[in-house]
């Protein structure tokens, strides 16, 4: 479904992503973990088309991606951002935020679609005409997920979708994402610094350090501690320490 081959992104003098390659089969999830500044979000932004200054080769469903994407690309690939407090327009109601993709893509039947989308992410119909500041963090992230799904994409890019939420809400949102994936056959690429979150959702996980993908391993191997690269071992040790503490 998605292949990324030798992706490189520079910001001025520094190379933020140094030749990253991975592949994600259809209907599956791929997790990218790493410390802050390891380039994991940059990979996602290049893949989503938000950053058009990259070299390498990326394909989605066999189609090679150009730096500038057409409308049909954005119908197929959508993204959910890390901070639900920043990713919703503060002056637009939930209804407006959800109708925007429909208007852009000329999809009709907005009223029923919005009602269905709210139900799908388990938001009450009463939330439909609220502004983002009237919603909790978890509700906002549900709105952001609903917005991503409005144009019925096949791929959802998740940029730390739970790290701005508190722990009880994190689990809810992760379960929602898992549900949606099953129901709709979505393909996920998820970035996180939280190994537990990624291991929960993704069968395959790439570990990034300093702009390079140092190891790709399965979620089972990660849980069992069958790591080969010292950085992965270190990250794993840190996260289990945190859990025990």
């Amino acid at each position, binding site marked *: 479904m998605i292949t990324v081959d030798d992706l490189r992104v520079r910001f001025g003098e520094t190379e933020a992503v140094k030749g990253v390659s991975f592949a994600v089969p259809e209907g599956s999830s791929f997790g990218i973990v790493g410390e802050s500044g390891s380039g994991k979000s940059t990979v996602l932004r290049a893949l989503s*088309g938000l950053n058009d200054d990259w070299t390498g080769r990326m394909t989605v469903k066999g189609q090679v991606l150009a730096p500038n*994407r057409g409308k049909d690309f954005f119908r197929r690939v959508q993204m959910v951002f890390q901070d639900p407090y920043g990713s919703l*327009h503060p002056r637009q109601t939930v*209804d407006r935020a959800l109708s925007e993709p429909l208007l*852009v893509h000329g999809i009709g039947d907005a009223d029923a679609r919005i009602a269905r989308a709210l139900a799908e992410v388990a938001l009450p119909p009463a939330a439909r*005409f*609220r502004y983002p500041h009237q919603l909790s963090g978890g509700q906002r992230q549900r709105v952001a997920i609903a917005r991503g799904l409005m144009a019925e994409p096949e791929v959802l890019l998740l940029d730390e979708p739970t790290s701005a939420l508190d722990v009880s809400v994190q689990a809810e949102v992760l379960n929602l994402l898992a549900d949606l994936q099953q129901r709709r056959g979505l393909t996920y690429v998820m970035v996180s610094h939280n190994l537990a979150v990624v291991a929960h959702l993704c069968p395959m996980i790439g570990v990034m350090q300093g702009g390079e993908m140092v190891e790709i391993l399965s979620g089972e191997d990660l849980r069992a501690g069958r790591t080969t690269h010292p950085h992965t071992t270190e990250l794993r040790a840190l996260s289990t320490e945190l859990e025990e503490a």
Partner: protein
Amino acid sequence: MSTTTLRDWLLTDTPSSRAQAAWGRRYRLWCDFRANPLAMAGLIVTVLLIAVSLLAPWLATHDPGAQNLANRLARPSAAHWLGTDELGRDIYSRVLYGGRVTLGMVVAVVVLVAPLGLAVGCIAGYVGGVADRVLMRVTDVFLAFPRLILALAFVAAIKPGVTSAIAAIALTAWPPYARLARAETMMIRSSDYIAAVRLTGAAKARIILRHVAPMCLGSLIVRVTLDMSSIILTAASLGFLGMGAQPPSPEWGAMIATARRFILDQWWVPTIPGIAIFVASLAFNLLGDGLRDVLDPKQR
């Protein structure tokens, strides 16, 4: 009873339409604004001034152009509430009609300038690159001239009058708005919510118009209201220098200019339009301050 249900409808946590949500938001802003007595005073005085100017034909006691040389420079009296000027014209009526000219000029300038500044700033800020550089250098060129001098030169080059004064002030007033809108846009364009709109595949024009510009509007409105007093002063200065409204048209600045000879002996003749300018400027400033407290996104 009906007022409480309207209040409930506006303040509900679960609006049932976009319009209700939007009105609810506006009503909350209004509640914040109402809590500020100085801002309310500014608003009331501004509304009063505009109403009085619009109703001038009914409120005036005399024809503002009617001369009576036998009764020139008269003190305030029952017949002429604020006295008469050097041609025996009723000052009260002239101040009322003058409000139409002066405030009309302010409104015309704002209507011309605010959309232009907003458009230039948003496009420069959002599109960036060559467009940004070209638009901002043009803005810099206009900013480099002292405001009144450029307006004077412009009016002098074409024929003095209200229309050319409006054009001249508009010409010199838009660059700060463009700057402001650009600065706001630069901040907004890198936000996640604009990234999310870009990911819908929307065209640039749509993003600027529907998502970026509404966010710039708040601070622009505040800036415009605060600037209105300086527009009044520029209009009055042009009038004072004989480059604005031409006699016998009753413009506040021109009224002071023609009456300045009498400032020591018949002080009320230049003072009364001066008070009008002062009250209007102060009211706009108070209103602008109040609006800033309510609308400025950084304070919310």
